[in-house]
């Protein structure tokens, strides 16, 4: 229990220190603590021995579980959760640094909540037990609620309440589904056990198809809202729009990933029969998300809302990849989760920098900022391109693999992983590539390019709160701090885009674990529909059989 | 001890009285507007509960009922002390004992 607990405790201690310490030190305390958490997580990653095995580390000590009522307070991660965890700890200090000039009221609380948020996210990613995961998963709502409702925009209260209630409502179903599984397990084995491994083992083998169907839907109810999938997304644009920049960044970069991570880690392995049965449904929802939200993005006038909706569209790709049930798609989804965290987080930071200067996010009020703030424009263009999936940058790998996974997810495809979706799903979803280019280039065309138009000074002098806090007015273009925030993200974007192998290699074993049950289940399901993979497990043999 | 199988008349009287007293207390709590009398009505209900405890204890030949009544007395005393203190505080604020003067719970 060395590193995981330390990793978890650093933000908690940091939050306490930030809350107790003097207000003018709050930001640096928070920054240093989150940086320390990043450092520890990097050390953890360096020591992590299971990169290529798909196993968890540290291994569960069955002899002396720190357990009560079947809840195991044991922490550990596998390669996928470690990657998401690294994403979290990487984005956190940058986000906090990005809030230095944006937040001037109640600083101690702000930074303390931020670190508690980090602790909650880390707990969810580090958990190996459903209840612990759920604790972390739900706990994140609390800091986020306060971040939105205290430091948010005009409609912050509505946004915060909607965010809280909406996501909370969904996760109640998730909890209920998991409790059902645990109860059935307790019925069968006589002991309560919430360890994910045992729940997955039990549920995927012992529950009937009908039960798995409902368990899957129940689990997805929470995860779908968190992700969010198309018709249950409406909390997101409002929350993003109203949240302070830092909140938006973490919301987009990490919190949404909790939903897809839940699908990946819990829903898919726990109820494979349910997953297979609902794959078409979620595939259609994914397509709807990609296309409909992209079209909605197209008519947005608020830059931040546009990016918020684009998140929904992008998460559609992740959903498609997850429900492809083959390594290509799942690898793509994991890649996409990480790259979306980087590029969308960075876009929110960029828009936040604009907002700090002009106090508006309306695209009609500004234009041609490339001339006014060229450095900012460079970053904005870079991250927009990353977001629209330009090859060589991070977004492409995930997007391409997600869609390719969907494309090859057919009953008789030769990769040994039959699926239920197939080419039509992929081709329709791929229209999102065009629409994505459309709305993102419109965003660029409106605010970065065009004749120069700088929004006038803020109408409300009270909003000039950062002016009286001793760090003066921001320069016209980005200052050193802001550049220093964006450069690491840009490098990460380039790095993941040009050498994704690093990530692809390590996620592959974990992906195969998640998919362990699927080929057989999918084949069964397809057989019921009259479709069968003639050569499951042996496409090579089929090729050899040819003269 | 077979006579325990049938409740004696005294027990029945106590039980019916308890039911009626409790109902009366409840009705009183709902209809009285004077905060002090509302508390008095809760005492009435506690009284009824005590009666029922005694009656059932007698019926089952168990002294636990009586012991419980002692606790009821304790709670009633504590409640009287605190609640009345609060009532006086409230009275000082509004110069009235009417419960309707206090509607802050209204959304």
């Amino acid at each position, binding site marked *: 229990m060395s590193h995981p607990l330390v990793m978890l405790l650093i933000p908690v201690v940091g939050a306490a220190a930030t809350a107790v310490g003097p207000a003018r030190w709050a930001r640096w305390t928070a920054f240093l603590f989150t940086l320390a958490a990043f450092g520890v997580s990097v050390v953890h990653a360096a020591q992590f021995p299971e990169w290529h095995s798909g196993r968890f580390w540290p291994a569960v000590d069955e002899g002396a579980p720190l357990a009560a009522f079947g809840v195991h307070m044991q922490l550990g991660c596998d390669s996928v959760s470690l990657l998401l965890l690294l994403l979290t700890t990487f984005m956190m200090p940058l986000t906090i640094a990005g809030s230095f000039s944006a937040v001037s009221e109640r600083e101690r609380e702000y930074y303390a909540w931020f670190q508690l948020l980090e602790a909650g996210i880390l707990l969810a990613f580090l958990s190996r037990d459903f209840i612990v995961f759920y604790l972390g998963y739900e706990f994140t709502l609390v800091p986020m609620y306060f971040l939105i409702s205290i430091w948010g925009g005009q409609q912050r209260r509505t946004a915060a309440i*909607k965010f809280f209630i909406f996501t909370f409502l969904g996760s109640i179903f998730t909890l209920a589904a998991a409790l059902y599984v645990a109860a059935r397990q307790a019925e069968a084995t006589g002991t309560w056990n919430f360890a994910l491994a045992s729940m997955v083992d039990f549920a995927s083998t012992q529950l009937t198809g009908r039960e798995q169907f409902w368990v899957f839907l129940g689990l997805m109810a929470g995860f779908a809202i968190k992700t969010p999938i198309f018709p249950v997304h409406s909390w997101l644009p409002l929350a993003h729009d109203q949240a302070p920049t830092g909140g938006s960044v973490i919301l987009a970069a990490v919190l949404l990933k909790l939903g897809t991570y839940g699908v990946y880690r819990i829903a898919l392995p726990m109820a494979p029969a349910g997953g297979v049965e609902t794959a078409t449904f979620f595939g259609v929802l994914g397509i709807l998300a990609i296309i409909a939200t992209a079209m909605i993005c197209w008519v947005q006038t608020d830059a931040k809302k546009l990016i918020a909706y684009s998140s929904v569209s992008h998460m559609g790709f992740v959903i498609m990849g997850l429900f492809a049930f083959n390594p290509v798609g799942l690898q793509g989804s994991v890649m996409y989760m990480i790259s979306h965290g980087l590029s969308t987080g960075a876009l929110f930071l960029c828009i936040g920098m604009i907002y700090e200067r002009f106090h508006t996010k309306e695209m009609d009020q500004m234009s041609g900022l490339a001339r006014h703030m060229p450095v900012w424009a460079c970053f904005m263009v870079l991250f927009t391109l990353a977001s629209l999936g330009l090859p060589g940058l991070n977004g492409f790998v995930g997007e391409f693999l997600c869609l390719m996974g969907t494309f090859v997810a057919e009953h008789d495809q030769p990769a040994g992983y039959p699926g239920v979706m197939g*080419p039509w799903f992929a081709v329709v979803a791929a229209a999102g590539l065009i629409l994505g280019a459309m709305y993102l280039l419109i965003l660029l065309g409106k605010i970065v390019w065009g004749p120069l138009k700088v929004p006038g000074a803020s109408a409300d002098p009270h909003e000039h709160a950062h002016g009286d806090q001793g760090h003066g007015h921001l320069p016209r273009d980005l200052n050193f701090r802001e550049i220093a925030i964006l450069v690491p993200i840009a490098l990460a974007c380039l790095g993941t885009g040009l050498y994704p192998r690093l990530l692809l290699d390590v996620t592959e074993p974990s992906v195969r674990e998640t998919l362990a049950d699927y080929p057989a289940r999918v084949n069964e399901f397809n057989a019921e529909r009259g479709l069968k993979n003639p050569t499951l497990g042996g496409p090579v043999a089929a090729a050899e059989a040819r003269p | 001890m077979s006579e325990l199988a049938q409740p004696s008349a005294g027990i029945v009287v106590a039980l019916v009285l308890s039911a009626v007293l409790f109902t009366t207390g409840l009705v009183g709590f709902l209809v009285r507007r004077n905060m002090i009398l509302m508390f008095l009505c809760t005492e009435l209900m506690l009284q009824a509960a005590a009666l029922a405890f005694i009656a059932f204890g007698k019926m089952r030949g168990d002294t636990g009922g009586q012991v419980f009544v002692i606790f009821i007395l304790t709670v009633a005393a504590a409640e009287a002390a605190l609640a009345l203190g609060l009532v006086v505080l409230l009275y000082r604020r509004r110069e009235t004992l009417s419960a309707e003067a206090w509607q802050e719970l209204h*959304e």
Partner: protein
Amino acid sequence: MTLPSLMLASVLAAASGDAAGHGSLADAPIVAATAAPELAWVGWVLALPALSAVACVLLAMLRVRNKLPAAATVLALGGAFALILKLYLSRGPNAAPVIVHLWDWMNFGWGGGDWKSFQADVSLYIDSLTLLWMLFVTGLGTLIALFASEYMESERGPGYARFFFGVSIFLLAMACLVMADNLVLLYLGWEGVGLASYLLIGFYYRKPSAVAAAKKAFIMNRVGDLGLAVGIWLIWVNYGTVEYGELFQKLAVGGSDQGGWDRSLIPFCLMLGAFGKSAQLPLFTWLPDAMEGPTPVSALIHAATMVTAGVYLIARMQPLFMLHPDAMTTVAWVGGITALVSATIGMAQYDIKRVFAYSTVSQLGYMFMGLGVGTAFGAAYHVFTHAFFKALLFLTAGAVMHGFAGQLDLRRLSGVRKVPGFGIVSWTMLVGCLWLAAFPYSAGFFSKDLILVQAMSKPQFQILGWLSLATAALTAYYTFRVWFRVCAGPVSYVPGEEAHGDHGHDDHGSQHHDDHGHAFHPHPPRLAMNGVLLLICLGAILAGIPGIQALRGQHNWVQEMVYASTAVRAAGVDHVTTPVAFGMDPHKVVSVFGIAASLGGIAIALWLHLLDRRMADRIRTALLSNGLTRWLPVAMENKWYFDEIYHALFRLPLWVASHLLHFFDRHFIDGVLVNGVGRVPTVLGRLFQPLYNGALQGYATTMAGGVILVLAWVAWRWLGAGGAA
């Protein structure tokens, strides 16, 4: 000297995937690509433009206002050209293909065997086709960058660095595209050149039209890219690999027939990509708009190199185009029709660069037609010659524009030839025009001839051949319409507005303003521009040599390079070079027709635009006044209303649907469903609100009611049995 029928048979045989078709390729076995780690230095071809791009960024950050970015870029591109030349010289045209692995990219597997891994690395596939393309891409890239170093000097500062950053990125992406050893890396290059094109078209980003054109180019290309992506997925499903080497091997033995979509769809998907990038129908409207970019960009990206990527893709993937019998036919017809349609539009344009842009579309159509009718050599050769003469034409147009303050309207320029300092520009432009008009025995004539011959000699393509001849006549006409209007005739010119074109967007642009406020003096090009023009002109002249050799039936290096490429060998076509048409040597027949078309076009242009310039207007007026023919000039001047049709068919419905969806999302999903559900508790609360008036007893009443209900339920549920007994 085989009969055309035999060739046709081999095409059809290959198309149907018949083993017999492959059997006939015994004389040209598919040479397996071998890894060549010793050639790792070729990686510098990618690294040099990348480095110059980084250098440009650094120079912009240092706020350098001199020509260092140009120097860095020209050096890097020249270095890349030198490396490619060295590679070519060291290998010769007939060497077996090699693969140079640089680093792993999208590469992962989930078990052994085919279909259990996905490999798309950053590695280079070097065969003769690659080298042919890279030679003219890097060579022209270097020259045009040199040209731009002078052309763009008014932008010195961040804009200058940005321009050369774009050029470097373009070369990097183009090198990836051409040298990729797998389709995904090709896709990277494919989108990368799109990005460079986006950045450079939108170079004058304060002009809304430039921004719109850049956006349009990127999005229309994305439509094509979608086709390419689907093609890649289909290839992987069917063959389990996206690497050329392995793919060609597997094609020979046939792939898996698994997967819901037939593999015969592959060529059509790839075709869509090629049409998008190479501006063919129906995705051609972005290219004329792309002329909003600086002229060197138009020359390099939108004439010489990037737009030929589609031709490269089809030439490279030729074996796959045999998977469906109609694939190549479709390519031929699309190419032919695009050539004709854009030539008609080009005839009626007044902006010099637009005329040349439509002529580019038209010439690209020729190339596709060449591929479609079965002469990869002809197509590649046309790409090669076209790269030179079209770059030359754009650069001369740019020089004119540079000199006359952005004036591009051919009605407002005349006799530039006689303006001092514009001699070289005018005469090199004449060379370009002659070459484009396929003047007899020019390089353009040879390459066009090869394509026409192939088309004419196949019965099913003869109509297409005649159409192309008509197109050739139109081409000659509109080309010389430009030259006779602009360079010949009496000297008269109107300087362009500063806002138009390339000038005066930066602060120091205002310095020019006073210079040509009243007495306008044209700025003749200086050393770098003239030198580059002469060099490219020389290249264009020399580009005719292989044509002469081909005409004489000799082997020439372009032909060798094309035939030696794995792709063409695997496709099993193009071994028959001397077909027969009309029972005669088709070269002779077609030459006669071709020369007639070319000279006829030039003659009409000479008459209408030099000798009697009023006549053109009279003809136009006559056409307009006649109700029957009125539509013709109007439609041609309005580009056959393609933009409007697309707007009405796609953009407008999408726009309306988007607004509806937005409304639906806000008011139905969020408003009715979410907030409605959210309001249910409130509404229920309203129902019982009398109970919750804030009075203590109100709550007490409710609580009592609840308690009583529970009690009653308990009494009935658990005590019921006892009571009944």
